[in-house]
């Protein structure tokens, strides 16, 4: 798995345990082939817009789906979402907000910025595995991206 290659899933998650659990869940559903993990919002933007250490990436080969946590260091999840949805090159990218927050304002703001889905990470591991698995299945296999 190389960062420079086309990826299926970009996981934006600062919590390493959550990231590990997410990848494990995807793995359980045999969807973990091309998963890239970035730990903060700034890195996520670099990755998506092929900047900085991701400068060699081809913007024309975006991830199939972005799993985005809201509470991130440096650049917040909602900022990342806004940047993606405001750029013509990336605005059709499916972004699934996967977060612990059940707060109404966050959900509303995320959808207003163009989030494609909003999923609250369950505490229960089985429910969590189920949820991540469903998301992966849907966005990677069932959903038909444009172009």
């Amino acid at each position, binding site marked *: 798995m190389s960062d420079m290659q086309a990826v299926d899933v970009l996981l934006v998650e600062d*919590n390493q*345990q*959550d990231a590990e*659990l997410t990848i*494990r869940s995807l793995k359980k559903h045999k969807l973990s082939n091309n998963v890239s993990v970035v730990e903060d919002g700034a890195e996520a933007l670099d990755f998506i817009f092929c900047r900085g250490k991701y400068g060699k990436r081809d913007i024309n080969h975006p991830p199939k789906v972005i799993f985005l946590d*809201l*509470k991130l260091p440096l650049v917040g999840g909602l900022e990342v979402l806004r940047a993606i949805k405001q750029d013509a090159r990336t605005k059709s990218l499916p972004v699934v907000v996967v*977060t*612990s*927050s*059940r*707060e109404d*304002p*966050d959900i509303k703001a995320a959808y207003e910025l163009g989030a494609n889905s909003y999923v609250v*990470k*369950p*505490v*229960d*591991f*089985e429910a*969590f595995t189920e949820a991540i698995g469903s998301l992966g299945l849907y966005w990677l296999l069932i959903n038909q991206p444009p172009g």
Partner: protein
Amino acid sequence: MNVRSRITLLFVLLAVVPVVVVGFLAYYTGRQSIEQVEINHLVSTNLMKSSELTRWIEAYQQRMEELAQRPLLIQYSATMVDFDPADPVYDVSRLALEEDHLKPRIKPRGGFTEVSVISPDKGIILASSDEIQEGKYYANQRFFAEGKTHTYTQGVFYSIPLQQTTMMVSTPINDRREMLVAVLAGRLDLRGLSTIMSAQSGLSRSEKTYLVNKSNFFVTEPYSGEGYALKKTVRTEGVQAGLSGNDGVAFYNDYRNIPVIGAYKWLPEYNMCLITEVDQSEAFAPINSMAMTMLSIISILALIVLAAGFFLARTITQPLARLVAGAAEIGRHGHLDFKVGTEDKDEIGELSRAFDRMATELKMTTVSIDELERRIHERTAQLEAANRELEAFSYSVSHDLRAPLRAIDGYTRILLEDYQQLLDDEGKRICSVISEGAHKMSDLIDDLLTFSRLGRSALNPSSIDMEAMVNAVFLELTTAQSRKRIDFQVDPLPPAMGDPALLRQVWVNLLSNSVKFSRKKKRAVIRVRGEKAENETIYSVQDNGVGFDMQYVHKLFGVFQRLHSVKDFEGNGVGLALVQRVIYRHGGRVRAEGETGNGATFYFTLPHQGVI
């Protein structure tokens, strides 16, 4: 009419009306008395003049009688009557008569102008002081006929032969045997009469007295006329009244057509009328000048009072106008610094100062209201900040507290899945306890967040059909299976005004409690009631569940307070605290009754008016 005009008018009325009334009365009584005085004066003048006239005539009559008694005159007269004119004795007698007796009687001023001896039979003038008259006949003259028997005065008449006005006094000349010898006649100089008549009484310039004869001719010259005597006629009211034989006084226009007061008196013995007149303008001059003075005084007084009233009214209306301006300034423009500012000691000054004090106090009040508003803004800002902090806190809690729990649960599962063969049963049990703890903690976090959100979010009140809501919530909380066991009774419930989502949560919590705590009963009974009181509606949920000990009732509504073990009844002690919080926010109250083993009843009220 404004106050100023009214005060001014009042002043003028108060000052001028009494003066006018008094003035008129004074004028009226003054005129009356002057009139009376004038009338008395005129009447007495008339009396005086008439007696003077009588005396004047009587004086000449007396002179004539004395003359007629002179023996020589009698003798000469008799001689002339008895002798033929051709006889020398006749001429001697005539001469002696003329020179010694008749001519000396003629005075250049006044008195007789002509004295003659007339023959008694033929009426021929025998001898005269004026020789030209001799031989003339007086036979048809009245004074001649009357003079034969007694002294007679013929009133003024116009003598055609003489072509002049004249007055004759005649008296018989008798001898010692009282036999008529001749008639002595004297022609009187009427200027004397005029002098008497025109003699001023000295009181008034326009006063005049004159005589008018039966034919309306002036007999004596009136004061302001010349050559009037027996040439001009006069037919004024006074003259006509006098010539009708009356005495009296009248107001009329005289021969000059000037208003006069005239007194008239008929003199029957002379067939004449005596008139004394005075110009009304002169008679009433004093009272007229008094009236003029009075009018002037009234005019000046009115002007002074008008000015005084005007300025006095100004002193009243000006402070009032300033008050009005002040009220407008404060009321319309809100200039609370406005001051009427007066030093006046009167009631209006007092009012002005009270007005100023009011403005000052109003300003202080307004200032304090501003201050209060400022503080409210400050507090609101503080509260909003606190609210934002709370929200941020909730956010952190919801986000950050969950992640470790998820890790605990997740890794415990991984342990169970990946290291299954290394763990014995006790190890596996411990793993499940860890997992349960994590779940429990997650529920607590959720409840805590709900509880805190309820305290912060704004209420959206609307009308609620409580009965429908209760039935819907009950169906949601129970399964068909569990409903078979529960006797659920809902009385007709009054509708309520409140936040539907929050009140729904109240019903959820109360009904779920009832279901939960009565589930060990074979036959659970849950009853929901509602009734309207005066100011509020009281709702209640009663069950026949395990109940509680009333000595712990105060702990019932506390957060995380539980009266039963989790082993018997699950739950984390947030439900009733949440109910209380929602009801408090609606301005209502909560209450619970219960008995261990005999069920519990939970009451809450909602006020009819207003939702906080």
